[in-house]
């Protein structure tokens, strides 16, 4: 009888050890998978941050005027120094007031085209500055898909003094 008891107890112990081994193994796999996923997430975040920094540097140091804006309603969200200098203003808000008041319905045209096509390819816009100078610009923009936001590049073409 003691032999039978020992056999039964050994089977119980071995079976428990096997089940436990599986459970610990599974827990180890879960933890190492989680660690790997977190490392991958960190790597992607770092990559995104570096890419964002590169974009910011390009945006800020560009010789062309650049801005990010909402075309409906017209709100300027982000600008670089070049575009502020082109329009002879110092803040995003001043630029927004200027652009939302462009003569001959040009602001409305920008909104309509962005709504319809999603891009504006070198549209000519002009506006007279308070100092009596009429400026012409080439305005290109691309809408962010599914939003009312767009990124624009503006190039100054001419500046001519208004007569009278």
């Amino acid at each position, binding site marked *: 009888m003691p032999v039978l008891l020992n056999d039964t107890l050994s089977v119980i112990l071995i079976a428990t050890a096997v089940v436990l081994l599986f*459970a610990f193994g599974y827990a180890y796999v879960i933890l190492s998978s989680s660690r790997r996923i977190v490392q991958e997430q960190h790597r992607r975040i770092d990559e995104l941050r570096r890419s964002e920094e590169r974009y910011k540097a390009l945006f800020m140091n560009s010789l062309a005027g650049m801005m990010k804006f909402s075309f409906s309603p017209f709100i300027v969200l982000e600008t670089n120094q070049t575009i502020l200098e082109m329009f002879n203003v110092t803040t995003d808000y001043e630029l927004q007031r200027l652009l939302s008041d462009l003569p001959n319905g040009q602001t409305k045209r920008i909104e309509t085209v962005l709504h319809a096509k999603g891009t504006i390819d070198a549209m000519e816009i002009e506006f007279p500055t308070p100092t009596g100078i009429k400026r012409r610009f080439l305005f290109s923009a691309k809408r962010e898909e599914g939003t009312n936001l767009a990124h624009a590049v503006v190039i100054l073409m001419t500046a001519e003094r208004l007569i009278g």
Partner: protein
Amino acid sequence: MTIPVFAHVAAVSCFIPAAVGLWYWKQSPAAMRVFTLFCLYSTLHLVMEFTLGRLGISNQFLMNYHQIIELLCILYLFHARVTERRTQLFFRALAALYSVLWLVNKFLYEDPERFSEGITIAAMLVLMTASVIVLNMSVRTAAGPVTQHSTFWIALAVLLYGAGTVIITGFSNTILAMGMEAFDTFWHINWGFTILTNLLYARSFRCPSF
């Protein structure tokens, strides 16, 4: 019959998650508050078991009730954690199926003086399956290390406790028939896993996310 020291340590360890749960009560989400209540209930259950044991009254019926309460509480917790509709339905089905099995066992087969092995093993297997699903889902969906989620520690505790004790529980009446000495020796494994489970439960309250 003298109760081994290790059994006392295991019994005292039941107070730890209840105390930690109460300590973190204000910061805890609703599901973790339910878990705190479950830990408090487990402590009360243990005190009652001990008291009845000391008075020489059979406490088996308490253990038989404890299974279904434990299973429903933990499944509720896991149900609150998962986001997939299919998995939630699966957990609900498991809870319903087990409740039916438990009732059938209660009214047709249960001997109040005897430990219900079959229904206990069924509960352990249900909880182990649910734990594996929750652990697997945590890795796929957690925004950050899984160790920062309370349910990870609870699922891990349930899985390890189940794996360590399911076989012994299945043979508990057989071991008991071999004599108290054999039962005492084997039950050390159970007490060891009880301590580990309670420590992991307590750890779950210190996580920033549910």
